[in-house]
């Protein structure tokens, strides 16, 4: 088998980052929603008027995802060329 395109290594790594991020996101979302949300309604506290489980799961969760994505795009994801440079195959 021929040498693997080095760009594919980067692409594979970034796809795994996507999978990992989705798993962490799911745990956060699920944990707060059903961890806090399963208590009796009388015990809920309210943050900015929103029930606490919802605030942490969906609002804070969303903000954290945005920050993570910005950090990823700036520092982790690598720039590669999509064009075929080595046409001599």
């Amino acid at each position, binding site marked *: *088998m*021929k*040498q*693997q*395109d080095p*760009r*594919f290594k*980067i*692409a*594979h790594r*970034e*796809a795994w*980052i*996507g*999978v990992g*991020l*989705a798993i962490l*996101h*799911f745990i956060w*979302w*699920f944990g707060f*929603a*059903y961890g806090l*949300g*399963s208590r009796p*309604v009388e015990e*809920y506290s*309210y943050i*900015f*008027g*929103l*029930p606490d*489980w*919802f605030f942490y*799961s*969906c*609002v804070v*969760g*969303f903000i954290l*995802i*945005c920050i993570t*994505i*910005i950090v*990823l*795009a700036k520092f982790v*994801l*690598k*720039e*590669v*060329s*999509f*064009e*075929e440079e080595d046409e001599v*195959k």
Partner: protein
Amino acid sequence: MSLAVILPMIIFLLIIFFVGYYASQKISASNSFLQEYFLGGRQLGGFVLAMTMVATYGSASSFLGGPGTAYTMGFGWILLAMTQVVTGYFVLLILGKKFAILARRYKAITLIDFLKMRYKSPIVVLLSAASMIIFLFSAMTAQWVGGGRLIESLTGLNYHTALFIFAVSVLVYVTIGGFRAVALTDAVQGGVMVIGTLILLIGVVIAGGGMDNIVQDLLNENPRLVTPFGSDGNLSAAYVSSFWILVGVGVVGLPQMAVRAMSYKNSKSMHRALVIGTIVTGFIMLNMHLIGIFARPVLPGIEIGDKVIPLIALEVLPAWLAGIVLAAPMAAIMSTVDSLLLLVSSSIVKDVYINYVKPEASEKTIKRMSFGVTAILGIIVFLLALNPPELLIFLNLFAFGGLEAAFIWPVVLGLYWSYGNKYGAIASMITGIVSYIAIHYYNQANGNLFGVHTVTIPIVLSFFAFVVFSLLIKRTPYDFEK
């Protein structure tokens, strides 16, 4: 309905026309017609790319149906809707660079071009072209009906006239401008959606006397509205979580999303799209669904979910502002329809006509075909939407989940797993669609199997079908470097 509501809508449509015309100028200037018309010359920058993904994905259901359900179900439904944030980054990270590189190497213009080069099998091509044409066609018609109904309810015109206005607007810019027009108008429409939802949310919160007040009203009415389990306590954690597959990770398999992942200019625009797309999707979804539930204390007793957003906008905003805000669902519907229309027409022209009917067709013939097919398809959809037949409504039920079940593994494993071959792909597509239809009927009759959404099990089954058949029949590693 007052002129003040209609006027902003008309201005909005005029801007859209102008953008379509601008894009068509670019087409005549470029040399490869097919690549330009169906892919915008692979030159999309980050902002336009993000917006076109958000706008294509956000359809009538995100702006009318979803908030309407939140109105009746409460916070549990917003929890469910927020699973869509994941699409913002997942599609681009998974398909991402590998798809962009391979699509260029294969000179692929459609998703099916990619599958054709990867699996080298006419059966895969015909199977996927057929399922795309059938499912997307019906999905599109359903959206046209939504668009017509929206204009009808806003302007008081009758449904047929309303549908006609809608059809003409979409057809003009899609036919003449192709993908670039669609992407650019999507960007305008995405902007309208962001601003529209923000204005409306603020309006509703003020009308309800602040967030604390609104949530207190909800608690007084039915405390379950504030829990994650829905107004009647029936939203189970398993069911809500299975939406991670339907509207989150499974979206990777939707052809209209995949085709956008081949259209970006370079990795820089992909990274920007990743950031903008995630933020905008989450922002719109959170706002729209909060509006839906906050509308409940402000305007109680709305029976039809789809009417919640139009009614609340007219209630809490001055007429001209309501007109601008209601251009948002209009924009959402138009931007979904335009991409689907182009996708179906590319599938017919590129995947079927050029592949199997007339491979030596000249540039000029292809050009005429592309314009012609796009226009004719639009007209057929219009005629169908005038009086939607039963079959269409039936097919539309399968459109979203059915396509995901059919395409997700042939695309994802085709990209990343070198042992994937055509036998796996064929088995996976058939298993996905057949089991989707079977489980749909089972769930209708007996309640959801394992308590999860219909799409979940077919996606698991089609995964195993892909792996097992790829390994059993003619097992050879695929060389991505060829």
